[in-house]
């Protein structure tokens, strides 16, 4: 998987390169608009991360040029500008997503994964992580053969974590997916909900499956 990062801030591009490479991507960096456009048109990428404010040629111009060349490589805008109109403009010009700085790296990874698996995800009916078993259709969960007594929201939360196994989910994302709360709150409620879920899923069994990535979010995986 190759990703082109067009970003003039060296610190930002450096951490993006590091993070993306550690997640198994091959990364090219362009530090100005002209180079970015040149790379985008001459090399084959699976995804382009595009800053809007760039020297020489801005992000809007680059994506227009790319799309005019019938190149439909997915593009995610990364920008400090978050006026609603900018968002709409970006998406109108053919961007696939729009992320406002400062954003969490985990959020970026989630968006990238979403775009990469645009093809319908195979929704499985049951998930199995270590000795944890989740039966989506039957709305049941069990660990080590012992049924877990979960509330509706707790079950939804566990299902979300299981479906995205190994992926760190931010509190904002969780409150959006589980409770339909769409804004970035200070999100204490998510912490409490996770704590309660742990009490039922992890504590009685000795081995923890739900992990906190401090300052980032939560992940369900076997460690």
């Amino acid at each position, binding site marked *: 998987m190759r990703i082109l990062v067009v970003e003039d801030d060296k610190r930002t591009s450096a951490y993006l390169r590091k993070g993306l490479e550690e997640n198994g991507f091959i990364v090219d960096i362009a530090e100005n608009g002209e180079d970015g456009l040149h790379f985008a048109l001459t090399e084959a990428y699976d995804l382009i991360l595009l800053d809007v404010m760039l020297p020489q040629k801005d992000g809007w111009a680059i994506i227009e040029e790319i799309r005019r060349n019938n190149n439909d490589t997915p593009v995610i805008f990364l920008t400090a500008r*978050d*006026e*609603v*109109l900018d968002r709409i403009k970006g998406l109108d010009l053919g961007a696939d997503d729009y992320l406002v700085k*400062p954003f*969490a790296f985990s959020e970026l990874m989630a968006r990238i994964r979403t775009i990469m698996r645009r093809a319908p995800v195979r929704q499985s009916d049951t998930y199995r992580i270590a000795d944890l078993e989740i039966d989506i259709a039957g709305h049941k969960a069990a660990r080590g053969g012992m049924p877990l007594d979960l509330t509706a*929201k707790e079950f939804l939360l566990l299902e979300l974590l299981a479906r995205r196994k190994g992926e760190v989910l931010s509190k904002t994302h969780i*409150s959006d997916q589980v*409770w*339909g*709360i*769409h*804004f*970035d*709150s*200070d999100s*204490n*409620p998510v912490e*409490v*909900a996770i704590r*309660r879920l742990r009490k039922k899923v992890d504590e009685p069994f000795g081995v923890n499956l739900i992990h906190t*990535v*401090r*300052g*980032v979010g939560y992940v369900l995986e076997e460690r």
Partner: protein
Amino acid sequence: MFSKNGDGHSSGHKPGLQSWSLVGRLTLLVTLSTVGILLVATLYLFTSMGRNLDRENDEYLANEINLLRTILIRDTDNSETLREEVEWEGLAQTHLRYYARILDDQGNILLETPNMNEILPVKIFPSPVAVSQDPREGTRWKNGDRDSFLLESAWAQDSSRRMHLIQVAMDINRERMTLIHIRQSMTAVLVVGILFSIGICFIITRKGMQPLSDITEAIQKISAEQLHERIGPSPWPRELKTLAEAFDRMLDRLEDSFEKLSRFSADIAHELRTPVNSLMGTAEVALGKERTPEEYRQVIESSLEEYGRLARMIESLLFLARAENREIRIEKSWIEVHREMEKIREFYDALAEESGVEIICKGEARTFVEPVLFQRAVSNLIANALQYTPQGGSITLQTGQLPDQSVKVVVSDTGCGIPAEHQSRIFDRLYRIDPSRSPKQYGTGLGLAIVISIMELHGGSVTVSSEAGKGSVFTLIFPPVS
């Protein structure tokens, strides 16, 4: 020069009356009207005086003709009376010289005032009026360019029915001179009067406008550094009093906003300084000596939490700034208020349960709002209520349609309440009732300010009532769909 932009001179087109000074304008207008009145008055006086004199003269001549006619018809033989009348009447008058002449129907002079023929020959007289007619107005005649006369002639009959021609004349030089004299003095009076009225008017208006200069001076003293200055209640004239009061009220509001703004800036600096300081310190200490990976991890993790808080705070501040400048476009849709409330209740349920607080939803309503902002406003109120409601308390969410079709959402708690002196300020940004409470524990301090902004974006309102020890009630009103 640039500061004079408003006076019209620099704008290129001819300055109109609008751009004159008030004193100049008033002086000009009052002077014009004074001149007008004086002119009309003197003209009227002058012409009516002239007309009166003319009428008197005409009457005098007509009387003389009638007198002569009477003498003639009564007694032709008594020519002594006639002679006396004709030859001496003119000499008897001291200030107007009068001439009379009587001719027979052949045009021979029978009698005349001495010297009359040399000054007023027979042929210069107008054609005479018939015997039966009354005399007309006299005819003016000028002897070269020396003397002016008023002439009249009339037929008369004597007792034996013989026709006589009467010619009378009077010297009106003196009157003409008098009139000219009067005209001159009136013109002089007029000119002096106009000059005086300009001067007096200028002085009066200047004096009358003095408070305006005073008020300008008072206003000029007020700068951004001295916003506490006021024009004050000094005894202004009634017209300026309203202006002064309005200006002072505007200053009050300005000063208030100004103060809020500078306090806000200071607070932001403080709010940012604390986390940045702790981030710097933590990193510095961590790098001070060799540590285990676990320790490094902890430093990075705690930093990340702090960054997240900073990022949220920036987002909130931007939101407030945009909402204030009306830069946020909201896309409304219909929501079932009770469903949204239920969603929010579920979100906060676990947290509330942990702190031993119950959240209760009541009522039903539908309203037309931006759904995410609605969630945000209600959530902020609940988060706020949770901070102040002790164990065993409850938070009630109640909604309902009001008679005017607006929708209210009431968030009430059984917490400690808000002391009266803080109630007006809790919606200010970063305002904290107890400044010693650390922001980490209690959010960014922008929650209620955001609630107000959201309500303003919807054209709605938020009010709070609270009783210490009994709890607080926040009421959101969403206006009806127009």
